[in-house]
Structures are given as structure tokens and as C-alpha cells.
């Protein structure tokens, strides 16, 4: 039953997307408003198809309908309810279904948001592009990645359940949906960018329309990546959270280009510059989400997430090439219209700082992309087997990271157009002292190493700069008699909150990767070991047999206090035992315990102990970044965006300090 319903739902979504595109295209050709409105309505059918397909999949999973190949391969009667639900995104076909669902949702919200302008060609074209992307994903489900394929032969009585690593921690319910909300969200600004190129309305109108969409997608992606790091920390058991694994890089790449974009759009809005660059960044962001899907879902790179060798690899690669080619041709053909009327007046100005920021982010993305695909290219071209891993990425990206922290400290203090030395002195002196004194304090307390010290100093500098902006904003709204919360809303203030989150992440990253300690101890029950000022006492183990797994847990007392239980799970259908670490999280350091070898005949077990400082700052920083994005996207007191496209024009405003509540310029 599920198979029939699911297949029909996928067909409905695919047909509706194709028909919607055709109707809109015809409506544009004939200049027929009725058809344009009708075309928009197909969006709801696409959403209906995606929702129905999801319901069918969930029903099949929950009712253990093993006649479906997907359920037979990834479901199991003994899997707990939560992980049965999350099984939908625990393997290739289901994760494409989740992608299609999120995409259909975004397109529907877009159609609703722009419903009063359904006859506007730019909206119609954007809908066509977005539906085109939907056609691709529904097409995958109708063809090579069909989640509703039936098993060949007899229906099995039970299945193996999802990958053991994906049924080990509740975060698996949040990390992938959050990440997909981020990835897929960039489809909407991308669709508008292409629509602007097609219609030739290349002013700042489309940017302003999609500004909040971009911010939301960026926020979701940020939170998704941080949740992924947290999942990796809590589940994988090696004591780290970021291994520069190709899958992690695949999510990080669009984040880097999107981060460059959310900064450089401000230059375009304010000064009407960098048009080609901004379009390129959006195209890059969207196509990198597709490339990431290719890298992680096609099996070209083996890792936890690259489920199997699959036939969808060539399809995704072809779609990636198509996206890039179409975008490049469109940008090329509009070259004359894209020339910017504005120019940069001084090398020490806000716009110049944004430019430098973009060079740094582009370099960052290039290094990560090159490092990720280089082993593939080298092997494909001359058969060399090479690895590019964490040491490479750390060494190459550290200088870029320092540059970005420095820019983050300086740029908010720079006025647009031109900065005087007087201004710089006045605005930067005390944040710079905050950074310097932080370095002095760290050195005085015995910390050594140029890298981490620079990171702490620059982070304090940037943090102080952001706090200064927020303090000025609070003062300004007090003076204006507005409630203080107003001082945190809006893009510039929310942006400073995001910067504070970045500072926390940078400090956590630098500290935990520089000052960690790890060791393995062979301990008999009752024995203790010491590492970096912490004591661990091994008490004993317990074994628990559950339906889907056998769990061996060690009881370990940390610092004479609470008992933690690192464990080893032997899943019913898994070949090797999966460890699950137990972590004592603290504001200043984590004690991370793993059970490496269960007790032998003499009762001696091997316990891994990992002491890492400030890891919790990463999770706190991620939360602050998400919250800051929310504040930045808050409507505030801005005027509604104008409904007509103002076309190319130079938007100029007098120098101003962004700490002031944002002035209502033409572009806001």
C-alpha cells in the first residue's frame, strides 16, 4: 500500500512541477496573467506530492512494511521509535525524499510570500527555476533513487535497521533536517538570481527580496553544521568534533561562500557594486550544495555518510554541470548590464573591508574544495593514491582564519566610503587593548604557542569590537526612547551577536585543538588514573541485552564525583562494536571517556580519557550564532521592501556608524 501511495505521490509531485513550469513559461510567453497565477498553484500540488510521499514512507517504516526495499534494507522491528522515524534520512533514497520535502516546502512558502506579485515576470521566472530544481529531485526519486522500490523475491520478516552510528544519539533527529533546511534554502535566492539575470532586472531589487531568505538558510546551515560537529563529538568516540572529513567539508563549502555573500550583499545594497561577484557567490553556494550531495551520496568518497555505490552519482554530477553552465552563460550574456556604477573610494573603508573579507572567504572555500577533491582528481588523472587530511587543512586555513578574525574586529568600526585616522583611533583603541591584554593574561597564566595565543587575542579584539557596537546601539535606542531590545534587532545588531558567537567558536576551536590531552589506561576495578589534573576511577562494567543491541557499559567516576558510563554496543546486525563515549561537559574543560577494550578475564578494561578545554564554547557559540541570525532577520522597523524593482541605480548614504539603528535607505 505504501509503495503504491508513495510512487503515486512522487509521480504527482513530478508532474505538478513539470506542468507548473510549462504553465508559467507559456503565461510569460503569451503575457497572460491568468496563466501565471494558475502556474503558481501547481506549487501546492508539488508540496502535496512531497508530503504524501513522506507520509507513505513514514507509514511503511512504522508499520515495518518490508516489502519496500528501503525499509527492508534500513528498517528493523527492534529499532526504537525515534530511530525508526529518522530512518527516513539514514540512507540515500530517503534522504533525497527529505530534500524534496524541504524544497517543496520552501517553494510553497515562496509562492505564498509573493502571491500578490504572481504576475510579475521575475517571480514567475524564479518559480520556474525553483520548480526546475524540484523536477530534478522528484526525477531522482522516480528513477535511480526510488525510495518506494519493492524487494525482489520473498518479503523478509525483519531488516538490519539503520547504520548503527545513526541510531545511537537523538541528535540524528535534528542535525540532518536542520542541515537540509540550510542547503535547500539557498534554492530560493538562487532562483531569484537566475530570474533577475533572465529578465534583465539586475538592480538591487531581487537582492532585497531574498535577503531574509538567505539569512534564514544561512542560520539553519550554521546550526546544522554545529549540530553535526556535536553529533560527531557525542557519537564517534575519537574525542574530536571536526575531522575535515569530506562530508563535513561538503557542508562547510556552501557555508563559506554563503557567509561571503551575506557580507558582500551589503556592499551591493549600499553602493551598487560587486553585482557579478554576488551573483557568482549565490550560484557557487547553490552549486556547492549540489556538488556536496554528489560527493557524499554517490559513493565516490567512502565515509559514514556515503551509503553505497549508487547510480545517482552521474545524475547529480550532470545536474551540477547544468547549473554551473546555465548560470555562467547567463552571467556572461548580461555582462554589459552588470557593470557597477559605484566604485570604492578608499582602501580603509567598510566596503574595502568587505572586499578583503570576500577574498579571505573565497580563498578558504578554494582550499577546502581543493583539499577535498584533490585525492579524487589525482587518482583519476594519474592513478596516484594520496590523502589530504586535517594537517593540511589546519595549516592552510589557519592564516585565513586569523585574517578573518582580524577583519571581524576592524570592519564593524570602519565607516562606509572613507575612514579618518581619528575615527580609527577612537573606535579601535580599546578593543585592541582588550585583545592585547587577553594575550598578556594568557601568557601570564602559562599558556604557550603562537597560534592559540594569536587566536585568543584576535578573538578578544573582535569580541570587544562587537560588544562596543552593541553598547552604542543600546545607548542610541535609550536616547531615542525606544525599548532596549530594539537595539539588538535588525541586521547590523543581529550581525554583531553572530560575531560574538563566532568568537566563542574560534576560542573553543583554538583551545581544544591546542591544549587537549589524551591517554589510554588499563585499569582493574577500583583503580584510578590521573590526566591533566583530573582523576578517573574505574568501578566496573555492566552488560545489558536489548532487542536490537548488546551494551557493555563501564562505570567511571570522574574527580571523585559523578559516575559516567562509556559503552560499547554490539548491534544485532552490525559486524563491529560501536563505542559510545560519555562526556562530562564543563564550561572550562570536558572529560571525555571511552571504553576501548571491555574487561578481560582478570577484569582489566582499557579506558580512553580525553581532556579538552573549552569544547562547550563551540556549542554555546553555535547557539549564539543561530540566535543572532534570528535577530538579524527580525523585521524591525524597516519599511516594507518596495514592490517595484528600482533598476540599476547608485544608492548612496552619508557615512554612518552601523551602531545607529539602521537608517532607512532606498534599499531597506
Amino acid at each position, binding site marked *: 500500500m505504501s509503495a503504491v501511495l508513495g510512487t503515486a505521490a512522487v509521480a504527482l509531485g513530478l508532474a505538478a512541477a513539470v506542468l507548473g513550469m510549462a504553465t508559467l513559461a507559456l503565461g510569460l510567453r503569451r503575457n497572460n496573467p491568468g496563466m501565471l497565477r494558475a502556474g503558481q498553484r501547481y506549487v501546492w500540488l508539488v508540496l502535496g506530492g512531497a508530503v504524501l510521499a513522506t507520509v507513505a514512507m513514514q507509514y511503511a517504516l512504522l508499520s515495518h512494511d518490508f516489502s519496500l526495499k528501503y525499509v527492508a534494507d534500513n528498517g528493523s522491528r527492534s529499532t526504537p521509535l525515534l530511530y525508526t522515524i529518522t530512518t527516513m534520512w539514514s540512507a540515500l533514497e530517503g534522504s533525497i525524499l527529505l530534500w524534496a520535502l524541504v524544497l517543496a516546502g520552501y517553494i510553497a512558502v515562496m509562492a505564498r510570500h509573493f502571491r500578490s506579485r504572481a504576475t510579475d515576470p521575475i517571480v514567475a521566472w524564479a518559480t520556474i527555476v525553483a520548480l526546475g530544481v524540484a523536477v530534478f529531485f522528484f526525477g531522482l526519486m522516480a528513477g535511480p533513487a526510488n525510495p518506494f522500490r519493492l524487494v525482489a523475491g520473498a518479503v523478509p520478516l525483519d531488516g538490519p535497521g539503520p547504520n548503527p552510528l545513526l541510531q545511537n544519539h537523538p541528535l540524528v533527529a535534528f542535525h540532518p533536517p536542520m542541515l537540509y533546511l540550510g542547503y535547500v534554502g539557498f534554492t530560493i535566492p538562487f532562483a531569484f538570481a537566475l530570474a533577475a539575470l533572465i529578465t534583465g532586472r539586475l538592480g538591487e531589487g531581487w537582492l532585497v527580496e531574498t535577503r531574509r531568505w538567505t539569512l534564514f538558510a544561512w542560520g539553519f546551515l550554521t546550526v546544522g553544521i554545529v549540530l553535526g560537529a556535536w553529533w560527531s563529538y557525542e557519537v564517534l568516540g*575519537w574525542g574530536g568534533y571536526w575531522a575535515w572529513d569530506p562530508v563535513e567539508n561538503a557542508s562547510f563549502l556552501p557555508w563559506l561562500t554563503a557567509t561571503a555573500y551575506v557580507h558582500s550583499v551589503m556592499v551591493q545594497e549600499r553602493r551598487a557594486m560587486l553585482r557579478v561577484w554576488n551573483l557568482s557567490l549565490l550560484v557557487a553556494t547553490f552549486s556547492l550544495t549540489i556538488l556536496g550531495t554528489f560527493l557524499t551520496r554517490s559513493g565516490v568518497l567512502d565515509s559514514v555518510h556515503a551509503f553505497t555505490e549508487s547510480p545517482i552519482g552521474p545524475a547529480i554530477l550532470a545536474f551540477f554541470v547544468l547549473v554551473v553552465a546555465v548560470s555562467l552563460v547567463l552571467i556572461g550574456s548580461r555582462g554589459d548590464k552588470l557593470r557597477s556604477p559605484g566604485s*570604492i573610494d578608499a582602501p580603509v573603508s567598510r566596503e574595502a573591508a568587505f572586499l578583503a573579507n570576500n577574498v579571505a572567504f573565497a580563498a578558504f572555500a578554494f582550499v577546502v574544495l581543493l583539499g577535498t577533491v584533490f585525492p579524487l582528481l589525482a587518482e583519476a588523472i594519474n592513478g*596516484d593514491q*594520496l590523502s589530504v587530511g586535517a594537517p*593540511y587543512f589546519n595549516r592552510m586555513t589557519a592564516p585565513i582564519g586569523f585574517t578573518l578574525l582580524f577583519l571581524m574586529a576592524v570592519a564593524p568600526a570602519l565607516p562606509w566610503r572613507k575612514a579618518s585616522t581619528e575615527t580609527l583611533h577612537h573606535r579601535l583603541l580599546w578593543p585592541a587593548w582588550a585583545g592585547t591584554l587577553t594575550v598578556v593574561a594568557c601568557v601570564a597564566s602559562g599558556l*604557550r604557542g603562537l597560534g592559540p595565543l*594569536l587566536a585568543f587575542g584576535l578573538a578578544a579584539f573582535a569580541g570587544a569590537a562587537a560588544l562596543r557596537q552593541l553598547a552604542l546601539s543600546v545607548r542610541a535606542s535609550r536616547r531615542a526612547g525606544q525599548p532596549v531590545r530594539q537595539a539588538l534587532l535588525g541586521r547590523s545588531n543581529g550581525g554583531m551577536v553572530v560575531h560574538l558567537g563566532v568568537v566563542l567558536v574560534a576560542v573553543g576551536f583554538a583551545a581544544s585543538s591546542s591544549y587537549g590531552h589524551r591517554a589510554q589506561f588499563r585499569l582493574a576495578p577500583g583503580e584510578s588514573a590521573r590526566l591533566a589534573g583530573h582523576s578517573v576511577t574505574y568501578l566496573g562494567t555492566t552488560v545489558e541485552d536489548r532487542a536490537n543491541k548488546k551494551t557493555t557499559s563501564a562505570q567511571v567516576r570522574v574527580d571523585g564525583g559523578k559516575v559516567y558510563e562509556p559503552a560499547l554496543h554490539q548491534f544485532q546486525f552490525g559486524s563491529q562494536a560501536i563505542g559510545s563515549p560519555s562526556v562530562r561537559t564543563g564550561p572550562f574543560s570536558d572529560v571525555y571517556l571511552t571504553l576501548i577494550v571491555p574487561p578481560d578475564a582478570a577484569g582489566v578494561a582499557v579506558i580512553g580519557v580525553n581532556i579538552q578545554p573549552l569544547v562547550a564554547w563551540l556549542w554555546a557559540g553555535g547557539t549564539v550564532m543561530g540566535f543572532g541570525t534570528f535577530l538579524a532577520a527580525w523585521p524591525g522597523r524597516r519599511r516594507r521592501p518596495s514592490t517595484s524593482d528600482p533598476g540599476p541605480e547608485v544608492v548612496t548614504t552619508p557615512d554612518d556608524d552601523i551602531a545607529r539603528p539602521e537608517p532607512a535607505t532606498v534599499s531597506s
Partner: protein
Amino acid sequence: MSRRLSWAVLGLVLVGALAVGSGGRSGPPTEDQRVQRISSVVRCPTCRGLSAAQSDAPPAEAIREEVRRRVQAGETDAEVKGYLVSRYGEDILLQPKTDGVGIVVWALPLIGVTVAVGGLVLVLRKRRTRPGAKVSDADKALVEEALRS
């Protein structure tokens, strides 16, 4: 305190602190440090992406023990890595060597950044020296007056 002086003091304090803070340990690295240094750039053969220093998997532990044995026997870092490459293949190293095709992955970003930064400097300079719109004396006078009032 004058503006320049305050920044000079800040610079001095910062450089001094960083100089003290980055002052390395005295003497040659200990055996533990060398084992750590070598095994952190060597891949754990069974777990993609993790280094032998990070992983608790038995093959990673075997590599760490092998590295320790060879360090104790007085081999240099290069000799130990050379042995591991001959035993496990080139892809055991987590960063490609700079001889051969691996040079690309190191050099390309450097070239790219150099070009980008050079381009940025050129753009900023060009903009700066580009003659703007013609300004007449009357316009200048107008500006002067506006600034005075």
C-alpha cells in the same frame, strides 16, 4: 597620551607577550612529542580521515607503537615516515609531499591568494588615483562654504 604613542605602547606590549608566549621549550623534543608529531600526520589505516594519533583503533595503535620503536632506535622523522610509506603506500600520509603531483595542492592556493590580493590592491589603487568627475572652482567654493558653516 598622544595617539601614536598609545598605539606604539600597545604594539610593544603585544609583541612582547607573543614573544614570551611563543618561546618554545628548551632542548630537543622528547620521545613522546616526536611520536605524537609523526603519528598526527599519519592516517589511521582503517578509519578514513582520522590520524593515527587520534584514533583508538588497533591498527592506529600498532602504528603508534611502530613509530615509537623507530624513534627509540634513533631514526629521523623522515626515515620513520619513509618506512610507513613503503609499508602502507603514499596515501598513509595525511598531507601530500611537495615532490610530485602533491605540490599542486600546496601551491595552487598560494598562487590564487597572491593573485587575489594583488588584484585587490590594484583595484583599490586604481580607484584611488582615478580622476573623478571634473570639479570646477565654483563647486569647490561651495563645498568650502558648506564646511565652514
